[in-house]
Each structure stands twice: as C-alpha cells, then as structure tokens.
C-alpha cells in the first residue's frame, strides 16, 4: 500500500481526456454552548472525558433531547445556502459499530433532512462566478476522539490499542452536501477550494461556528470521479477524507484526478472507496477495504420526536440573515474606496472577512488591512496555510492595534506580541505580560536609564550641548538597548534633550 508509487497522469493530459465530477461534503461543528442532544459543554481542549454525561456516553437508559439553538443554526445555514427548509423532518439512527461512537449508532438525518435543494454562487480567483447546487444540509452528532497507542506512527494502522475521549461525542454537526459538480474542467481543484473557503466565510458570517479546519470544526470530504470526454454517465468515485486545510482540498482533488486518470488510462478501474489525504506527500491512500458492504440500517429515531419548523419562525430567521459575503464585498469596496485589484487581492488572500471582523472589533481599517495583508500574510505563506488558519483571531489583532494606539506597544513590540499569540502563548495581553513586552512609559525609570547613558558618554553630551542635536541619537540608541527596546524612542529623545539642557 505504498501509495507514493501510484502513477499520476500529467494534469494537462487528464483534462484532454476526461471531465472531472466533484461532490463535496462539509461537516461543520456548531459553536453552541452545549452538545446536540445533552447539556454538556462543547469547548475544545478540555481534559479527556470531563465534558460527558450519561447521554453522550451512551450509558444504558440515557435519552437525547434536541438542542433548539442547533436546529436554529441548521435552518439559518440552510437559508444562507438558498435551500428550502422542509416543514417536517425527523432524526434517524445510522447503525454501525465503532468504538468512537458510544451507542454504536449515530443520530443523524437520513431521508428527511431539514434543508434541501439550495444553490451557492462562488467567485473564482479571476472574478468569474460559479454556481454550486446544494443537495441537502442536515443535523447530526459528532463522534468521540481516539488516540492510537503503540506502533510507530501514532496512526490507527499498527497501533497496539486505542484510548477514547468522548468530550467531542455529541457535538452538533451540520453536514452540507453538494449535488454533483460538473463543468469545472481544469478548475475543479480551484472550485473545490473556493467553495469550501466561501462556505467558511458564510458560516463565519452567520456566527454559527468558529470554522477552524485545523481544529476540525470544519471538515471536508471530497468525492472525485472522472468521465471520459463525451461520456454522459458519471464514473466511479472515491471519497477522500482527512483534508484539513483549504490548500489540501485543492491538492487532494488534483491528485485524485491525476491518479484516477492514470488508472483508467492503464485499462484499470477505479475502486469505489474511502481514501485518506496525506498532508506531507500530497498523495491519497486507501482506507481499509471492508469485508462486508456497510448496511447502516437507518430507521426513524424513536427517542426523538419530529421537527416541524414553523413557517413564521423561518421567515423571521431569513429576514435576520446577515448580508451575504458577495454583497458585503461590494459594499466594503465602496466604503473603503478600494480598487478592483485591491479588493481581489484581499479576497484571494482570504483576508476580507478577517479584516472586516478586525474592524468590527474596533481597529481602524488601514491598520487592520496592513496587519492581515502584510505581516500575517507572510506568516501564513511561510507556514503554507491559509490566512484564516493562523492561530490568531481578528479580535486579537484588534487588541494589538489598540495597544499600539494607547502607546503601550511600539510597532516592533507589537510584532513580537503577534508572534507570541501565533506561537500559542495566549492572548495579546497574556503575551505582553509573560514576555514582558510593555513599553517602558514610566518616566522615572527612563530618566535613570537616560542619566546612566549620559554619564557613560560625556563627549556626546558636550556635542549636544554644543548644538549638535543629531548627536543625541547615540544616547537614544544606548537607552533603547538598555531597556531591551521597550522604551518609546520619541519620549527617550525628549528626555535626552531635556537632561542635556539642564
């Protein structure tokens, strides 16, 4: 199963011979306070099995009760994707045995999803619009997390045993499934990435999820198949899981197209299977081949009663939807007086929402743009990830901007604070505290440092007193060095001149 030897067809050749068909399934973890069917908290990163109760542990006798806010979020997501909200639907049990699923069935929706038949227009990099049709959006519960112990890789294969944490079990998920996406040609990988990015922007705008691909709160499974040019029937598809970044979505689709084309060109057949994307190699590898076909034995969940969204309620939710990202883009362009190119740069960098969110959090537009488009963009590039995947939030960036404006940080210190946040050292204020980065604004300690520097360089003092004010720079530099760069240079200069004048 060394997939690194999978033959790949050159991309151009793939496109000459085949048309790709995509199907994208996105799972979104909702940002509700509690789980889908119980009152346990959903916060990420708690010690194992501390956010559990009889219901999400699947203990005998426990029962689920639907989280009303999760239903509301599902309806709002459906509306934002121009879906029809059904007037009656049910939950179903999807039965399969797996240790991360405590009841050995997942409560999901099957043939009666809450939202159906939507459409979602996305804007590609060159500004062209592409319409993605949405099959359905439905509610379900997340699984627990397994830690595989033993073996060399920490992966499931070769592990001696596994350890289970059910804190995530029961976290509300919305699964959004597209209809088959055709007609993309060479742009299939781009369409896939832009779709997920645009979906993420919409979800963020709705405030229903923190949409962190790196933490798994937004997860994409990419279905890919190829049709020989001129064919009308879809080919056999594969489903690639474990695609944890926007860049990976694009790479995984491209890789599957090239791999499947090579298989087909060699006279082989594509196996319908689940594959896993390897971030390191950019290849996909097959999951375990199951000895028996899955038979999930769906049936209506008897412990839950049907959901019948009230028409008036749905109309109210539709009216209260936030401005769609595309419209907002046009408005922002006017408000900030951006050229088409500037706007497209921001959009392509995935920065627009981050910048507006930073502005919403109190930062001036210019500073917000500058941070995201230069320093943080470079950082994202270096890391090979999307801007939004950086472990810093717009609120945190706004706080850094505020600290600079208050005079608590110099620009140089501000970059160090951002570095600390990116390194996982905490919030900006925590980084300032722990790294001791606050500007030394206390005059008495500055005066002491200035006096010390003056005493050390009597010749410079003489020059300054003699009218060569520019010579003061040497003293300022010495003070900055002595304070580890934490002093406000302008204030130091004032003090140097003051002391020399005495």
């Amino acid at each position, binding site marked *: 199963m060394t997939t690194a030897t999978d033959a790949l067809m050159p991309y151009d050749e793939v496109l000459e011979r085949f048309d790709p068909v995509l199907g994208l399934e996105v799972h979104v973890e909702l940002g509700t306070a509690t789980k889908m069917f119980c009152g346990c908290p959903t916060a990420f990163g708690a010690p194992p099995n501390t956010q559990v109760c009889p219901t999400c542990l699947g203990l005998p006798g426990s029962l689920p009760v*639907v989280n009303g806010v999760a239903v509301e979020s599902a309806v709002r997501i459906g509306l934002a994707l121009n879906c029809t909200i059904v007037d009656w639907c049910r939950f179903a049990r999807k039965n399969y045995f797996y240790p991360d699923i405590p009841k050995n069935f997942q409560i999901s929706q099957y043939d009666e999803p809450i939202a159906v038949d939507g459409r979602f227009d996305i804007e590609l990099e060159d500004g062209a619009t592409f319409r993605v049709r949405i099959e359905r959006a439905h509610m379900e519960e997340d699984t627990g997390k397994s830690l595989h112990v033993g073996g060399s890789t920490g*992966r499931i294969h070769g592990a001696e*045993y596994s350890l289970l944490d059910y804190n995530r079990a029961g976290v509300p998920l919305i699964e959004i499934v597209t209809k088959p996406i055709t007609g993309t040609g060479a742009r299939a990988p781009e369409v896939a990435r832009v779709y997920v990015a645009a979906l993420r922007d919409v979800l963020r705008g709705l405030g229903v999820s923190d949409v962190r691909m790196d933490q798994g709160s937004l997860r994409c499974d990419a279905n890919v198949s190829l049709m020989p040019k001129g064919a009308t029937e879809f080919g056999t598809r594969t489903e690639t899981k474990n695609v944890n970044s926007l860049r990976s979505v694009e790479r995984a689709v491209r890789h599957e197209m090239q791999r499947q084309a090579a298989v087909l060109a060699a006279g082989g057949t594509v196996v319908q299977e689940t594959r896993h994307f390897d971030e390191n190699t950019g290849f996909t590898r097959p999951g375990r081949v199951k000895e028996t076909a899955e038979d999930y034995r769906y049936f209506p969940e008897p412990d839950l009663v049907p959901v*019948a969204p009230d028409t008036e309620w749905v109309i109210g939710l539709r009216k209260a939807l936030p401005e769609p990202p595309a419209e907002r883009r046009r408005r922002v362009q006017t408000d900030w007086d951006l050229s088409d190119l500037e706007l497209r740069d921001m959009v392509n960098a995935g920065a627009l929402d981050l910048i507006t969110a930073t502005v919403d959090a109190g930062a001036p537009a210019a500073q917000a743009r500058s941070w995201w488009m230069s320093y943080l963009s470079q950082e994202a590039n270096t890391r090979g990830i999307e801007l939004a995947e950086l472990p810093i939030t717009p609120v945190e960036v706004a706080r850094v901007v505020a600290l600079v404006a208050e005079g608590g940080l110099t620009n140089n210190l501000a970059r160090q604070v951002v570095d600390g946040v990116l390194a996982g050292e905490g919030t900006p204020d925590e980084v300032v505290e722990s790294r001791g980065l606050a500007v030394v604004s206390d005059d008495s300690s500055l005066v002491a440092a200035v006096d010390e520097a003056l005493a050390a360089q009597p010749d410079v003092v003489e020059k300054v007193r003699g009218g060569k004010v520019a010579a003061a720079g040497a003293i300022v530099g010495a003070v900055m060095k002595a304070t580890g760069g934490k002093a406000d240079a302008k204030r130091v200069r004032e003090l140097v001149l003051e002391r020399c004048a005495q």
Partner: protein
Amino acid sequence: MNTISRDEVAHLARLARLAVTEDELDTFAAQLDVILASVARVGEVAADDIPPTSHAVPLTNVFRADEVRPGLTQQQALSGAPATEDGRFKVPQILGGDE
C-alpha cells in the same frame, strides 16, 4: 416470503457483532425461519394509502435550551470501564476504517 438461510444468519450475526457458534447458526436459522414466516403476515394488509407510524404519541418540536447542565466527573464516566488509561477508555486495537 423468503425464508432465511444459514449463510444469511451468519451474515446477520457479523453485522450485529455476535460471534455465534456453529450450533447456534443451525438453531437460529431454524427459529428465525419460523418467526419470519409468521411475522411476514404484515404484508397482507394493503399499504399504499396508509402512513407509517414511528411514534405512538404525536408530539413535535421538543427542544432543549442551549444551557450547560452538570454532567459526570471523569471518575464517574470511567467508573464502569473494563480498562482505562490517562483518563480515557482503553480499547483493543481498532483496525482500519475511518480515522
């Protein structure tokens, strides 16, 4: 209606994660056959215009407020576990499947 074969019983047992013995396969094949032949009567009633009933009492829209309720401590959660390690449930190796 179809009757059920020994192979089908073996397939069902696999789906249901029951490591049945050879003897049980024979017993269950015979018994399930009789039972299925009997319950297949449900097919006799006309069906097209009759809606199915999944719930005995016709309730809809029973929701919970999105408020945290006290759950179990880690110790309570693990109290019945056959094996644990580092605050987690310890289970035998999981083969393949979805990660």
